[in-house]
């Protein structure tokens, strides 16, 4: 029972990281119907910049976080403005491929800068700290990722529901023509979506890097973020609550399979594919996910 509670807690924490990553995908998709395959590398870039700012430039965590978010958002906004805007109306194939091009660029860029050493996980606490109750470990990073994810969701909710730009984003997602008619600048909305997505990616990346007590991370961080794909398919591509629920569900599936697979007939590393198997199942039964709208099937 202790093991189970432990696994559920860890799964919840990891699921929150996935939820943040999934939110990044969904926000971009809602605004511009683009699936950003480079989202994983946004995580890597953001986390790497924060790490460099903290441990090389010796800045505090929060200034470093601001720099990381700034750099990642800037890359996103620039990519949207310089590249994606010229690709409007092209087939989805080309748009997906162009984000894969960006993925390769960002990943290689970080590989060159990292140069073989693994950067330290940039968190403002000891990655191994925490407390335990009745044998269940509550790691500081896990608690922080749950709390911060809740705060980010709350912030997004308030932003989308009550601010002028948030309303503009929602209007654009529903009907671009109508949004334009209401005097909303679509380009601002796109920039905003890519910026917010970059910021959330940075935050998610930091938690994912520190994981369950990792003092450092490597360049495969971006690839491990691809598990957010099953999350967004499960939740529904264009649904923000879906991204959160899907992320948490996938985190739980991942950690629970990891916890119980050892010695079983499933062999090693089954947890790496369990989320994808769930995803394939969802695609076969309910392609628009739990909360998505049906029309996105046509993408």
């Amino acid at each position, binding site marked *: 029972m202790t093991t189970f509670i432990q696994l559920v807690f860890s799964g919840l924490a990891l699921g929150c990281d996935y939820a943040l990553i999934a939110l990044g995908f969904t926000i971009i998709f809602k605004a511009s119907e683009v*699936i950003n*395959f480079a989202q994983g590398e946004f995580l890597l870039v953001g986390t790497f910049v924060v790490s460099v700012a903290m441990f090389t430039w010796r800045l505090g965590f929060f200034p470093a976080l601001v720099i990381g978010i700034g750099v990642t958002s800037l890359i996103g906004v620039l990519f949207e403005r310089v*590249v994606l805007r*010229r*690709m409007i*109306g*092209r*087939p*989805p*194939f*080309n748009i*997906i*491929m*162009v984000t*894969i*091009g*960006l*993925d*390769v*660029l960002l*990943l*290689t*860029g970080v*590989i*060159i800068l990292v*140069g*073989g*050493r693994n950067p330290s996980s940039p968190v403002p606490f000891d990655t191994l700290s925490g407390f335990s109750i009745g044998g269940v470990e509550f790691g500081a990073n896990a608690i922080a990722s749950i709390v911060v994810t809740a705060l980010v969701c709350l912030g997004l909710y308030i932003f989308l529901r009550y601010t002028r730009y948030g309303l503009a984003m929602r209007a654009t997602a529903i009907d671009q023509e109508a949004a334009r008619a209401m005097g909303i600048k679509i380009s601002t909305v796109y920039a905003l979506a890519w910026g917010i997505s970059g910021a959330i990616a940075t935050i998610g990346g930091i938690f994912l890097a520190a994981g369950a007590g990792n003092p450092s991370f490597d360049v495969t961080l971006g*690839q491990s973020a*691809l598990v957010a*794909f*099953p999350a967004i*398919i499960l939740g529904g591509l264009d649904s923000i609550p879906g991204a959160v629920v899907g992320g948490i569900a996938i985190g739980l599936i991942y950690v629970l399979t990891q916890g119980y697979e050892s010695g079983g007939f499933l*062999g*090693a*590393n*089954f947890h*790496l*594919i369990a989320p*994808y*198997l769930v*995803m*394939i199942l969802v*695609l*076969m039964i309910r*392609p628009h996910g739990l909360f998505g709208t049906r029309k996105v099937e*046509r*993408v």
Partner: protein
Amino acid sequence: MSTPSPAPAVSPTPTVSVTPARANWWHSSRNRTLLLIGILVLGVVFLFGGDGWVSVLDATMVWAIAALGLNVLSGYAGQISLGIAFFMGIGAYTAGWLGGGPPLFPGDPNGLGLSFLIWLPASGIVAALIGALVGPTALRLKGFYLGIVTLALVFIGQYLFLNLRSVTGGAQGRSNFPTPGFGDFSFASPTTVLGVDLTINQWYFLLLLPLLVIAAIFVGNVARTRVGRAWRAVRDNEVAASIMGVNLFVAKMGAFILSSFLAGIAGALYASLSGIATPGTWNLLLSVQLIAAILIGGAASVWGSILGAAFVFALPIALDSLQLLPQSASSTGLSSGDLSAILYGLLIIVFLLYEPAGVIGLIYRLRTTTQRFEARRKGGDPATQTMTPSDNESQLDVEPVDRAERTDMPQAPN
């Protein structure tokens, strides 16, 4: 049934001289010239380039076969796939299982030691069969969804390759992949035949070049005939294609199976050439590199596949040989592998933005411009002299289905 009845007599006397039909890839003088130039260049490298360069050519030819496979599915039929690495892995382990000899290292699984004439085709056929098994599920999905499902295939493959130790060797990999040969003769040992000394790499070259040429001509022929036309129609507009009589499922499955077959063959050859493969060999990066190859070389083009493979896979080695950069990625700074990755990442974006038909499209554009220029100089009618990319070099960049349907009025082009 296949013999068409006489032409309808809308006007009573047709006065046309029927131009000879040139559907065979080989019958195109352009292709023949390019092929001969290609073989000539390769021949020079083969004879005078040194063993190192021959080994680069060997590897490039294997990648080119894989790129052809990916181009069948993504370039011609327009179906996004990140899963090509999975099918290469299937081909490699089929070859290892059927053709592999006794273990070279402890932990190597035993192979059946069958002939090259069995394991090479079998590697393609097994990959094709698995493609046929996966296809019906995957191809129900479109665009982004298909992309993610094929991505999942790569991860599922890595899991299977890790756990099916009796075939793959598990995490430490397998090193007893078979080497091609006939009877006592092996392509993988330096031998003197008819008084000519050839290295292993040169022997492999003599095997791989004909294989690549056969694959290229095969794909080129398919692309120019009935099935290829159906693929491009499915890529451009599914509804219109099916109204014209194209069975979407059959067309997509055909592309998926041929693509898997070629990937399987390439995987087997790759494993045979490099002598070792771990589950991590068949990773997402491999798929992404092949996507980069066809996008840079030219989607829906045979020559584009070959050029793209050369660019993505031979470039880092070429950069290495110039010795301007540190050799390994483990030290800080720019390695040749990193530099070429930056280059192809950048080129994917630039080509998709400005020339979705890749290098091949660029070559056509240059030729069109020169021809226009010459035509103008001669005072001819430029419109009739304009060369346009022929069918199998057509671009991916077309109006998506729903957009085209939404437009109420067709727009007159130009």
